[in-house]
């Protein structure tokens, strides 16, 4: 009887931990580190704030681009998965953001460009692909008190305003869009558990992180806004459920592609 109880407890000990280290079938021989870059682009050009870009018949001038990347997983040539622990990263390119009145009376989030994440302790091996999600998984999205990675309510990527859905904003892109003489200030955001999207990307060739310095993935902003009419719907959020879901699908299905391996 007691033994059973102890076994039950032992099971608890293991399950009570964050789920992040249960995919360690790969034995670390010599752990490697690398840098994963999410290179924001507009078609073939490098993404930049406050600069005009032509996409189709429209001119876009962006003032921010932010999104959560989470649960980054490397998959080796045998199919074994290595989930990077606590992998919640805020990728962004923003000017100074005024976040006063969110969790603090006066709060300025300083301008920042962040495209890369440094990863350590990667078990030795040949990796063929990477998997990650745009947004925050339901467990963490539903509970703002869980601390993991860069998750925080202090950076303006969550909704905690009184009487609004308390959860994270998965992605946020803002700017001005013009076509002929019409123009609109847009703010296109995604969120809600249903819009949590997982992306899988194959590397062009197997990568060994003990030699490769990094992996570059491309985020093409023209694909993010593809099919989304931001003049007609300049504010995309939970109130525009369909447009928001289309936007999230764009992030999940076509905006991210393989770029290159840095050796």
């Amino acid at each position, binding site marked *: 009887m007691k033994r059973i109880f102890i076994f039950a407890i032992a099971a608890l000990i293991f399950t009570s*931990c964050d789920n992040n280290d249960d995919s360690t079938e790969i034995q670390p021989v010599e752990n490697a580190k690398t840098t994963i870059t999410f290179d924001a682009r507009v078609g073939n050009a490098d993404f930049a704030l406050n600069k005009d870009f032509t996409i189709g018949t429209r001119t876009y001038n962006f003032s921010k681009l932010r999104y959560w990347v989470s649960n980054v997983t490397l998959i080796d040539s045998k199919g074994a998965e290595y989930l990077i622990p606590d992998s919640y990263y805020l990728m962004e390119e923003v000017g100074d953001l005024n976040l006063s009145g969110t969790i603090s009376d006066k709060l300025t989030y300083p301008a920042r460009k962040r495209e890369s994440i440094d990863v350590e302790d990667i078990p030795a091996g040949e990796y063929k692909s990477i998997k990650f999600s745009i947004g925050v998984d339901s467990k963490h999205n539903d509970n703002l008190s869980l601390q993991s990675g860069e998750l925080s309510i202090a950076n303006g990527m969550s909704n905690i305003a009184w009487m609004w859905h308390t959860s994270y904003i998965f992605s946020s892109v803002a700017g001005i869009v013009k076509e002929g003489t019409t123009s609109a200030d847009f703010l296109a955001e995604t969120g809600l558990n249903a819009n949590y999207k997982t992306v899988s990307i194959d590397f062009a060739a197997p990568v060994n992180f003990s030699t490769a310095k990094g992996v570059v993935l491309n985020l093409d902003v023209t694909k993010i806004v593809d099919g989304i009419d931001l003049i007609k719907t300049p504010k995309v959020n939970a109130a525009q459920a369909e447009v928001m879901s289309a936007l999230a699908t764009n992030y999940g299905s076509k905006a991210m592609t393989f770029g290159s391996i840095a050796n």
Partner: protein
Amino acid sequence: MKINFSYSILLSLILTACSKKESVDPEPQIYQFAVPANFPRPVFDIENAMTREGIELGRMLFYDVRLSGNNKVSCASCHDQKLAFSDGKALSNAGVSGTILHRHAPALVNLAWANNGLFWDGGATNLESQAFGPLTASDEMHQDLFELVDELNAVPEYVKQFDLAFKDQISSQNIVKALAQFQRTLVSANSRYDKFKRNEAEGNLSSMELRGLELVRQKCQSCHTGELFTDNAYHNNGIDADFSNDQSEGLFQGRFRISYNPADMGSFKTPTLRNAALTAPYMHDGRFTKLEDVIDHYSGEIKVSPTLDKTIPTNGFQFNPDEKKAIMAFLNTLTDEEFVTNRELSRP
């Protein structure tokens, strides 16, 4: 003596299995949540195990005006124990800005079972996330979360209690976790009705009260379900028929503003009927002053709209005066004096 593992050592192992920081302090004691015999099992958030120390900390915080920006408002300012943790006002102006809130402060009762969203529209998924709402809202506690952590760090008692409860520093995350733990102990299960159900001493219901119980089970049960007297779901109970006002981010549209499902237009979370005699005024905007008004509403003042819940007849339940009296009498048996006077839930 290895066989003689005490449960508490094992339990403490669970807690340390994941903590990064080594500490020599005693481990927090796991709180044994007692489920009342006539209640269902609550679903717990395993990421925030209740401990005696955590609950005590949550209680200190719940009653502490330091949680507000002007150090004058505590959670208890709008959630008063003697009113089953409601505030007796239709729409409060007790917040830092002194402006009138858009919604009525609900009673905080049996929240350990509230697993389908909090707030009248379910905008927060759990008590942990919910607490950030009142803390930061300018018309409520208007607190700067960075300042709050600094302020609490200046109080040695808090530094000690956070360490005891979480083996960690003071952080806004640990603040909301402690508040959630305390609020899960707000269990009301000792009304005369409960004693009747459990065949306990003083558990007698008069024939009129029994008639009322029967009526409530027949007519109200579809929403005010079971022993919790709520299904924790969202319904349009016919207090309004026009939801075209989409001001204030859909405030008046109820659950629709969260789900964006047209079927949820004008739906609000079913409140419990427990302690109803103490929680006037009623509904999400406190529009009914007396319980009698509520019963009159269900009896014959239903406002019909496409989303009106199917279990409510469009012309109401048409109660006769005796039935109304019986329902009133029964609702009064749901008052739990022990709950509203329990010292363990009072200001520490």
